[in-house]
């Protein structure tokens, strides 16, 4: 039988420290995931738009950025920032800073691609029609292209946010005490792997499934 007592006894550590990051250790799944999603998305907007820029001086670096970070594993990016950057800068970077930087840099490449594809999914005729009635290119972007592009992007964006949310568990490899690491710490003491890893699976699932549900409702609202 499952011994849920281990969850109850360690609930505060698992949830307050592991999930929210309020505790004695640098950590927290949400404390990492939420700013990583927001900042990664914002950086992704710039990268996506830069890839579409007419000037090659703008689009080429953005393309290289995307191709590079899509081509290397996330764990490696985390290790670079953890081991190499502090050596180059001769400055220690705390776990939280390392994890957040790695996620933002890495995920921005994916968000940028989604944003680029979303904008390109809007037919050329839409831009031409907006241009023909006298809208400036900024107005065309704002009133005609982006509203349609965002609608097309929502499913892919939410998928990427879910992936990012789950990938924050990789931050545990540098000692960042997120939900996964918290469960690991408790398990090392209590040896209750079934209960602990089942519990965190449920927590991850609750969050990711809520994101899917929210996205579905959001899509429906956009469609009507």
């Amino acid at each position, binding site marked *: 039988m499952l011994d849920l007592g281990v969850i109850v006894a360690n609930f505060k550590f698992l949830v307050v420290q592991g999930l929210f990051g309020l505790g004695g250790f640098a950590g927290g799944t949400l404390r990492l995931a939420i700013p990583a999603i927001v900042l990664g998305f914002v950086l992704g907007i710039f990268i996506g738009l830069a890839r579409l820029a007419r000037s090659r001086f703008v689009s080429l670096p953005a393309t290289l950025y995307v191709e590079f970070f899509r081509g290397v594993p996330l764990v490696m990016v985390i290790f670079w920032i953890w081991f190499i950057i502090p050596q180059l800068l001769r400055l220690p970077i705390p776990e939280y800073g390392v994890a957040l930087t790695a996620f933002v840099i890495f995920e921005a490449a994916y968000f940028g691609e989604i944003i680029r594809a979303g904008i390109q999914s809007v*037919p050329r*005729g*839409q831009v*031409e*029609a*907006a*241009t*023909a*009635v*006298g*809208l*400036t290119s900024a*107005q065309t972007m704002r*009133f*005609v292209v982006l*509203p*349609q592009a965002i*609608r097309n992007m929502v499913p892919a964006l939410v998928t990427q946010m879910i992936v990012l949310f789950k990938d924050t568990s990789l931050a545990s490899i540098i000692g960042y005490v997120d939900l996964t690491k918290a469960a690991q710490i408790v398990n090392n003491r209590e040896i209750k792997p079934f209960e602990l890893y089942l519990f965190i699976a449920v927590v991850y699932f609750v969050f990711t499934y809520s994101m899917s549900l929210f996205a579905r409702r959001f899509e429906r609202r956009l469609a009507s």
Partner: protein
Amino acid sequence: MAGAAIEFEGVSKWFGNHQVLTDIDLAIVPGEVVVVCGPSGSGKSTLIRCVNGLEPFQRGDLVVLGDSLASAGVRMPALRTRVGMVFQSFNLFPHMTVLENITLAPVRVRGLSATEAEKTARTLLERVRIPDKAGNYPANLSGGQQQRVAIARALAMQPKIMLFDEPTSALDPEMINEVLDVMTDLAKEGMTMMVVTHEMGFARRVAHRVVFMDAGRVVEEAKPEAFFAAPKSDRAKDFLSKILSH
């Protein structure tokens, strides 16, 4: 030509190495309706897309309502408000209602209040004979209705010139006339129009002049009666025999 609404002066255009317009000279006076026809790939769409700057050209000049497009510093968005355009594929904004499609530019570009713009839009919808569709989204309209909304959207900016790029080519046959009727009304009201179309009946009835293009050149221009009765060039004869035979 003094007083021309649109004047092409030796306009040439290339896509890469491929020349699509060659030394176009053509003047259209205010109130004139000109039908541009010719085989596909002859450059007729490109020609009218030059008029509102959707296509740049590399040589010559194009003077539209007194503004030279070749000279630097023409404010294209401002010029475009005086030149309306209707596309083959309608290009209505799918995320906006009919009313929003029509009022977007008057509000954002002209700076009209929403109420004023809406009033004009409703009048225009009467004019294109679909006053009851204001709240619909484009997806819920037939092709003919969508194209009439597109005409209303262009007219909302009170343009001096209207360009039509194969406005009925994407329509089911039974809807072609409802669009042509609106265009005929517009022509009768004295709008300056350039129309790329294969609707030779419309050309015969409504156009003041037919311009026949082939391979990027204006091969022939004539009054419709003369053009259809006795085309001068072999290429025009060949073209007409192909499209009028059925």
